[in-house]
């Protein structure tokens, strides 16, 4: 029990990694059943272990909690330094929740190299939690880069026909960005006298020129990950080729790492540069909301459409961050969580269709509601959530970001609010062509409705979407102190 009390974060990181290695050890497709059940057990256990993070978190404090700090590579002053605040806790929980869903989603679909598939997800889960908990620069960087490997494999091994192009594009794109981040971290460490303590970096005095360079280096890493226009084109390709589970994790959690990086690293370390570059970032965010939404409108491939929708919704997140307003920033964080659920669910829905007809083309379908009414209910629900219907989580983030932005600049808010129209347009137009209408394709008439497994996983995610939509207060409460502190910190100039 002491282990759980004092080393909860370590447990959350390494338990799924070890579990993944155990699953790998049973690597034999003849024993696929055992691999599946072990994976489920590990992911559920990880989720249960993450609950104390929520229940025992002190909401009145903006300090790092559940801190673990021991020297690691003393020669370079690199520490094993973990801790969470109100911004990272929801993200860790999102990770543990969705990993369970993804494991269930891959249950029957993956028939080749089953153990490796589940192991990749479990190991990735641990590494992603690591990203959200690491407070040492090098530790953060290691987790950040290491999680690329299982994702690269997931796309490259279990992906679609063009998977190699997509996997390499994904890998190079993100690697290029993160190398600049490493340079910035090394520079900061020299300026800080050798330490890689991120929290110490927050209080490091830096000149305006240095701040700009450091910020731009981090910006390169995070903007690619989010992704922001114009470095977004890896995402649609990666999604199209990735298996369903890969798409879910990619959209739901990987993208959030970029946004998280802004909050934890780039903004507090270089606040003056953040303010200086904010207009550009806001411009790019609004471009994402409008430009990408129009591009999403004309997609023929459902996964591409949802991928573009993700980019558009992440535009709201960066907009919310860089207007430096409490409601907008809290809304942006809610949007991160909500988008995790909704985009994940939409990819699951596409996966359900793909498993049946092996097509992601919108034109293949039509009239699905006739044969799959239960499925139709879910996809319409998630589509409405994606369009920001009140009562679903999709509304909360958009609403708060628009409201918060309005009090800063009405024009920004007006452009952002266009998403009400265009977001609904591309989502519901897809629903119209896939779900409604007469059945054109005889294969569609043969499709069977959701089985219990699929029903369960969609219901689970739907419950989350609804809960956050109807009662977002607890989510906002847990992040309030940390957001206040962050904004207060960023408001003070380092010059």
């Amino acid at each position, binding site marked *: 029990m002491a282990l759980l009390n004092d080393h909860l974060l370590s447990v959350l990181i390494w338990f799924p990694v070890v579990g993944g290695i155990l699953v790998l050890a049973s690597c034999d497709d003849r024993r696929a059943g055992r691999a599946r059940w072990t994976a489920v057990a590990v992911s559920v256990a990880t989720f249960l272990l993450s609950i104390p993070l929520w229940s025992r978190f002190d909401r009145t404090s903006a300090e790092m909690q559940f801190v673990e700090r021991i020297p690691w590579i003393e020669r370079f002053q690199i520490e094993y330094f973990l801790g969470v605040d109100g911004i990272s806790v929801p993200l860790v929980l999102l990770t543990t929740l969705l990993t369970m869903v993804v494991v269930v989603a891959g249950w029957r679909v993956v028939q080749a190299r089953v153990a490796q598939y589940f192991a990749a997800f479990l190991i990735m889960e641990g590494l992603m939690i690591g990203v959200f908990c690491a407070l040492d620069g090098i530790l953060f960087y290691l987790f950040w880069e290491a999680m690329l490997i299982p994702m690269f494999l997931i796309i490259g091994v279990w992906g679609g026909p063009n998977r190699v192009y997509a996997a390499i594009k994904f890998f190079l794109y993100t690697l290029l960005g993160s190398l600049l981040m490493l340079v910035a971290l090394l520079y900061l460490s020299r300026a800080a006298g050798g330490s890689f303590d991120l929290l110490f970096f927050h209080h490091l005095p830096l000149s305006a020129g240095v701040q700009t360079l450091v910020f731009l280096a981090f910006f390169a890493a995070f903007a690619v990950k989010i992704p922001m226009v114009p470095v977004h*084109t890896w995402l649609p390709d990666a999604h199209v080729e990735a298996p369903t589970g890969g798409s879910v994790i990619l959209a739901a959690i990987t993208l959030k790492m970029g946004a998280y990086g802004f909050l934890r690293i780039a903004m507090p370390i270089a606040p003056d540069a953040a303010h200086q570059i904010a207009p550009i970032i806001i411009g790019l965010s609004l471009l994402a909301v409008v430009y990408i939404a*129009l591009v999403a409108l004309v997609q023929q491939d459902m996964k591409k459409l949802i991928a573009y929708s993700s980019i558009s919704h992440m535009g709201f997140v960066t907009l919310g961050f860089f207007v430096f307003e409490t409601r907008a920033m809290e809304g942006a964080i809610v949007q991160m969580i909500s988008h995790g659920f909704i985009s994940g669910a939409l990819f699951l829905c596409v996966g359900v269709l793909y498993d049946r007809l092996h097509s992601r083309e919108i034109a293949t379908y039509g009239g699905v509601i006739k044969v799959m009414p239960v499925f139709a209910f879910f996809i319409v629900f998630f589509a409405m959530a994606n369009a920001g219907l009140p009562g679903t989580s999709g509304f909360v983030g958009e609403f708060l970001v628009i*409201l918060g932005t309005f009090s800063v600049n009405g024009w920004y808010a007006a452009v952002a609010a266009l998403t*009400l129209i265009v977001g609904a347009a591309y989502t519901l137009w897809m629903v119209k062509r896939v779900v409604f209408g007469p059945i054109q394709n005889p294969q569609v008439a043969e499709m069977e409705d959701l089985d219990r497994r699929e029903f369960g996983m969609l219901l689970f995610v739907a419950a989350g979407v609804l809960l956050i939509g109807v009662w977002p207060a607890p989510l906002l409460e847990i992040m309030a102190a940390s957001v206040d502190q962050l904004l207060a910190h960023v408001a003070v100039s380092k010059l």
Partner: protein
Amino acid sequence: MNRELLYLLVPLSCLVAALLAGFLGSRIGRVNAHRSAIGGVGLAFVLSCLIASDVFSGNHFNGSVYTWAVSGGTRFEIGFLIDPLSAVMMVVVTFVSLMVHIYTIGYMADDPGYTRFFSYIALFTFAMLMLVMSNNFLQLFFGWEGVGLVSYLLIGFWNERESAIRANLKAFLVNRVGDFGFILGIGAVLALFGSLDYQTVFDAAPSFADGTFTGPFGSEWHWMTLICLLLFVGAMGKSAQVPLHVWLPDSMEGPTPISALIHAATMVTAGIFLVARMSPLFELSTTALAVVLLIGALTTLLMAFVALVQTDIKRVVAYSTLSQLGYMTVALGASAYSAAIFHLATHAFFKALLFLAAGSVIIAMHHEQDMRRMGGLRKLMPVTYITCVIGSLALAGIPPFAGFFSKDAIIEAVHHSSTPGAGFAYVAVMIGVVLTAFYSFRLVFMAFHGEERMDAKTRSHLHEPPRVVTIPLVALAVPSILAGLILVDPVMDGSLFGNSVVVSAGPEGLGMTAAGMLAHAPYSAPFWLALTGILLAWVCYSWKPGLPASAAERWPRLYRLLMNKYGFDEFYHWVFADGARGLGHFFWEWGDRRLIDGWMVNGIAGAVGRAAGLVRRIQSGLVYHYAFAMIIGLVGLMSWFLFARGN
């Protein structure tokens, strides 16, 4: 019983009913599904009546149920404001909804989506109640979008029809255009007042009345004007005001009961309700009121003309709804909020009645909606005929039917209004009176009088629909006759709405009474205009049936303009639907694929590849190349040592 619990029970009973019918419909069966839906909505109606009587004896309520979220110092609450305005709305909504529920048993009897339909209309009632009972902008927006969602689901109820799923997408998106303005309006309210609670905002509003900001091109803007105009854009979407009206006629693709409930009696009045609720804000901006007045007058006039040429029985009623919503908007613009809500209430009764009567004709005719193939139905369907005539008389504003009082109140208020543009609006509503009477009785004469134009097979099956259909007709006919007479005095002396709407220039000061209005009617212009309209309809569609066709031939351009509904649909389709898709294709092809991927990403990859190819040539693998390079390097280094270091 605890009042708060009672209030909570009103929407929740509908929600529970909707969930029961929706999720357990296939398990509990059709009968239990409609029983639960009707039970839930019936309970809501009874409670609404109790609450209304409680409110009118002076017990108002304003309080929150739970805190939705706290962010940046702003508390977002879910709560109720129960005052005369919301009480009237609750009674109207639940009553019409209940009638429609009962009617649906007959209308949808053969439909495979029976339980789903009940689930939707109960859910609609829930969302509408949340909207009207709200005490803050957040919940208002929740109900607002909720009714939009259900409207989307119901217009596309027959989801195999291409026209239906096209119409529901259109309805949702046009409404979203309105919501775009609405959410920005809410943003402006929060930015200015720091709260979304009605009472807080209304109390603080007067002190912000003169607050201005600098808009584009250095123009000076009042905050209140901005807020009211943005909120009104939302109202224009829901209440289908020109130019955001295009979705309402198409929404007739849905089953008729929902046309009655959602697209005539309740949801489309949400915008009217919104402006009345916000009357303390609108009163502070003459500019906003003038815009409201102008839009309302335009809608009244333009849509009434289109109604003249429609041949689909439901579309006639739909365009008449648009025109009547215009009347209500005109009243709002003239600051006669109570008259607007009065007309909203009477209109809800007689318009629901007219739609349900049209639906009754449609079932009897086996889903034929073209009036040119009807005729002579009055002998075959007497109950439908009589109730339909009652509805039409009410709509045309003939005393002592309900519409007479509410419409007269509006006309008088506009007449005495000082809002800029009131003169134009007055002319518009007067012309509207003739047109309304004309198209209402055009329907009556075409469908129920004259020769029978249907085919023999349909004729042989024609009969009055069952009681579940006719009882709601009769039940709605009663308030269509009496609601005006009963309500007019309390509306006019201001005792009905009290201070729940602003009373400044409304009909309250005009000293109108039921007796006075009835006595005055024969000497007033609207009365004779209405009679003229009815007479004209009789001439054109009963006495000399060839007249309309020759008129259409005589003025072909005008006729085509009206048949094309002024070309709004084509224009929007061309500019917005095709425009957005074209822009999307352009961005995708030239932005994402060529510029970013082709030029930047793959271009850089190609450049790296080419550079590598060049560098590779150096490594030729031939010893004398390497030896040569070494000698050159050695010579270079030695020279540097000798000359550069030496100095």
